[in-house]
């Protein structure tokens, strides 16, 4: 009985290599954006994300929670790295050129997504970064499609507010 439950649990648990292959580019891109184009630092951040994931992969049984977790951890690791840099910059002036506006705007977008409540953040990540349909998102989240539409709408509005952009009503 216990062995059967354990084998079922193992079967339902995603493999790290599979998750890595599915998410590595997205994680690396988010890290690269948040770290303003620093590839080496983005690679370090992506590495740290997957090392952390390895220790708690057993907790995830569905794409939705994994996706939001990966995004949150990636953004947080990058924030920590930026804070560390700012501290060291105070001690030693940074000779590197400032980041381009493009990277700043993209980083602000990811940080704004991360600042959303989880109920709004998850549909946005699944819809725009994983290109899932409303129905697929509804299945992932276990809620009606109408709820997905509402949450997406509210999420976009809050995002626009945080980014100071003018949002058009559909």
């Amino acid at each position, binding site marked *: 009985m216990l062995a059967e439950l354990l084998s079922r649990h193992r079967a339902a648990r995603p493999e790290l*290599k599979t998750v*890595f292959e599915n998410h*590595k*580019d*997205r*994680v*690396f*891109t988010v890290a*690269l*954006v948040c770290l303003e184009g620093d*590839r080496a630092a983005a*690679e370090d951040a*992506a*590495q*740290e994300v*997957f*090392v952390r994931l*390895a*220790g708690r992969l057993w907790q995830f049984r569905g794409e939705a929670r994994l996706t939001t977790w990966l995004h949150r951890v990636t953004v947080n690791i990058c924030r920590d790295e930026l804070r560390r840099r700012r501290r060291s910059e105070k001690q030693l002036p940074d000779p590197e050129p400032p980041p381009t506006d493009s990277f700043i705007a*993209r980083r602000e*977008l*990811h940080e704004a997504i991360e600042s959303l409540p989880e109920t709004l953040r998850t549909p*946005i990540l699944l819809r*725009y*970064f994983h*290109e899932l*349909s*409303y*129905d697929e998102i509804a299945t992932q989240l276990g809620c009606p*499609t*109408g709820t997905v*539409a509402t949450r*997406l*709408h509210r999420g*976009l509005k809050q*995002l*626009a507010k945080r*980014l100071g*952009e*003018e*949002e*058009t*009503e*559909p």
Partner: protein
Amino acid sequence: MNNDLPESILGKRLEEEAAQLTPAPSGLWERVQAKRSKKTFPKRVFALALAASAAVICFLIFRPRPLASIWQLEGRALRVGEEIKTARSARTLTSTLGTVTLEPGSQLRVTRSRPERQQLALDQGAITVKVTAPPRLFAVETPRALAVDLGCAYKLSVAGQSSALDVSVGWVELEDKQGASVLVPAGGHLRVSSNGKLSLPWYGESGERPKALEAYESGGPLEPLLAALHEPVDTLTLFHLLPRVSGAEREATLEKMLTFTTLPGSVTREQVLALDKKALATWREELKLLWGGAAQLGI
């Protein structure tokens, strides 16, 4: 059915952002694996150390500890297995049963403390016991014998493998390792040789009896011993001599006994000579009155 909402400006921006995927560097998986193994090793070592520590703590908390005995030494309860040694001065163990005084240069252990048996072991030296316990509750081991208290006071001494018992009040039963036992009343003495053989019990501190006994037990003839036993209390020695001799010597021993006492009505001369257990037990019960201490016997 497509329930999708028409995309907003921000939606389009998000789609653009999602489309700008930068492929992860090729060696990233190997880097992840390398860092994981570095992180996992100390974690495993830590987990093992933690498990080992927990096991040690559990052992320390739950390890079987020796039971506290009823004996106390200077207000401290002694544990089963605990050893007490004396150097130049005596020490006294106390309990609800009475006292045990350990003489200088002695060594004693608490070997058992159960409701049905309180037992000490005298390894070296001498003890003076004064107990008022119910018969057979208290006993003292020596290297070759066991002294079972039947409600009394006595001195027990050990030198190497041999031991000596001198009873002052009541009765003590001394058992050897083969199960043979001798009942020693107040005023009686008994020795256990280094090979574990019990001597015959006798009365009197000094005089011809101990010498005659020693000579007989060293392989000497019976007659000098019989000649040395000339008082009614000597029936103690003679009674215990009966099973150790045979034929004419047993008859002579019985004749000597009958000069001090008579056989009970239910016991015949033939039964005694045949070492009939029931007959001997009956006679011994009557002889106890002669040996003294019957009032203290309580058995």
